[in-house]
């Protein structure tokens, strides 16, 4: 039956309004460029790119949570901190920090599983503040563990054998590869069956529930996946610092940045976090040396976008041009 959903009267069903080969070629070219960046670009640019991909991972995860699953979390910095500290712990136990990144991310995810059973008793604004309570609790517990450096923190072990150039190089590649895995994974997830359920939840939770979508278990999956993603971001952050300290690893500014980037770029779209992260770095670079003003301006911009242009920059582009760079749905095209 499914083959005849759209009768063959000169129309086809496609994902993109451009040839799929363009997407694949484009992705390969972009991936090759960023993989070779340390050899092509000056070191200062590579360092900016490192921070860019760090924020891109976080924004992508926050977009998945809030934009698709409708969960406004203001506690994602908790999972960033847990990822950092999980990596520190594994490295202190003798693991290679780079090899331990996936494991550290999974630790953050494993902690998120029981947490969902508590948090999901609350909705909306109460859920939001409760996520912060969980993040704050995680930080306070870490603070009291002297093995992990308490309030003053500890340097990341296992990196001393690397020359400075080699270290910058490896730490960039770790961040970039993590960002690549997170972005491609999120994109494939949104194109999958789970993505379909998410899109239906985003548009109308009641309708999704009455059509048989398992809303609560989907939310739980997304919350855990976002914890894994933010844990991975925390792990690569710990390597690129390379010093793990509670005030930085659990900083609420991570949350502010990922949230603002998502809103400005376009919440609930795949492209939004990418666009928002670019806007953030343009602002950040041009307001350097002005202290916290970049965050004030970025925040004011995000508030304005949320009020008057809730689709964000990408939403505006898509509505004007009907163009989707990374399509997750289908569209009917005349042959």
């Amino acid at each position, binding site marked *: 039956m499914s083959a005849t959903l759209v009768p063959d009267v000169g129309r086809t069903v496609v994902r993109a309004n451009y040839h799929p080969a363009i997407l694949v070629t484009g992705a390969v070219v972009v991936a090759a460029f960023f993989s070779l960046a340390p050899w092509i670009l000056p070191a200062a640019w590579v360092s900016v790119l490192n921070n860019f991909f760090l924020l891109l991972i976080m924004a992508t995860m926050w977009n998945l949570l809030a934009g698709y699953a409708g969960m406004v979390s203001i506690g994602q910095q908790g999972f960033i901190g847990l990822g950092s500290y999980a990596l520190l712990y594994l490295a202190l136990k003798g693991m290679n920090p780079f090899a331990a990144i996936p494991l550290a991310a999974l630790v953050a995810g494993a902690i998120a599983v029981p947490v969902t059973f*508590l948090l999901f008793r609350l909705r*909306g604004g109460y859920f939001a503040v409760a996520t912060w309570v969980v993040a704050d609790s995680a930080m306070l517990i870490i603070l*009291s563990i002297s093995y992990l450096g308490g309030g003053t923190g500890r340097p990341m072990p296992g990196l001393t054998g690397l020359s400075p150039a080699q270290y910058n190089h490896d730490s960039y590649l770790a961040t970039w590869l993590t960002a690549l895995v997170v972005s491609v994974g999120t994109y494939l997830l949104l194109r999958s069956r789970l993505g379909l359920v998410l899109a239906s939840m985003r548009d109308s939770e009641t309708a999704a529930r009455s059509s048989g979508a398992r809303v609560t278990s989907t939310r739980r999956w997304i919350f855990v996946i976002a914890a894994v993603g933010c844990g991975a971001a925390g792990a690569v952050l710990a390597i690129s610092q390379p010093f793990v300290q509670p005030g930085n690893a659990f900083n609420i500014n991570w949350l502010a940045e990922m949230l603002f980037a998502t809103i400005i770029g376009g919440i609930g779209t795949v492209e939004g976090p990418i666009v928002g992260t670019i806007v953030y770095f343009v602002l950040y670079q041009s307001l350097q040396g002005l202290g916290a003003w970049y965050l004030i301006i970025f925040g004011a911009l995000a508030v304005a976008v949320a009020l008057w242009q809730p689709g964000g920059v990408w939403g505006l582009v898509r509505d004007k041009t009907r163009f989707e760079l990374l399509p997750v749905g289908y569209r009917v095209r005349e042959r």
Partner: protein
Amino acid sequence: MTWTNVIVQGVLFGGFYALFACGLSLLFGVMRIINLAHGDIAVVAGYTAVFLVPHLHIAEVWGFIVVVPIFALVGYVLQRTVLQAALDRSPFTTLLVTFGLSVLIENLLLEIYTANGQSVNIGSLIGNSWQVNSTIYVSWFELVVLIVAVAVLGILQLYLSKTSTGRLIRAVSDDREAAQICGANYRHIFGIAAAIAVATVALAGISYGILTELTPTTGGSQVLLYAFEAVVIGGIGSLWGTLIGGILLGVAQQVGAHYNPAYQVLAGHVLFLAILALRPQGLFGKKEALT
């Protein structure tokens, strides 16, 4: 006897937390939204008391008489402009916008007044205490704040049940469309509710600034979290529950601090998470309030 003292100190702290929380609880009851900038507004009120009142040639202990009405006005204007615009979009937008405001306020305070702590100075009055016996001291100031918190909650309860504006607030909160059909201007009613909420949290912020130091981040990581925990522990939708929730939070924190000062805040979080696990509607809340 040390335990009695721990509990007495906890109960006294509960007054602050109940005062933090009643505005948050009221706004949620009326508009079904959480103002994530709630705590930051308290800190701005505290900073106003620190930097404005010394120019007014009045004793600083009476500064709240000037600052609280200003913040009632601020609350009304904030509601009629930014918050109403966000609310017209969706509750989701309100969360994003109030979080944005929170970050803006904290970073502006940081840029203008640095990260240094600021205190509202009321001179020697803060040191006065009443020695019950060899181990129990009751600070007069903390006792006054507890009494003020009880009085504010009592007046609010009376206001909501006895006055015509109070009844309008409840009508709009129960069924906005029906209240509108009967001629209620819900935007104005929301504005009044926000004015009350912001005024009470301003009073709380000034009192907290007298007791301890305020920093740009006090509003988020302390005032908002404690207010929220007090509301959930007591039960969403119950004003007197909020008072009990605040007191229990204060006691839990003092018990934690008694073991190790580093566990003060964590003990409060643990109580909150335990309530969430065992009785998510809170001690005095109704199950329906959760959905």
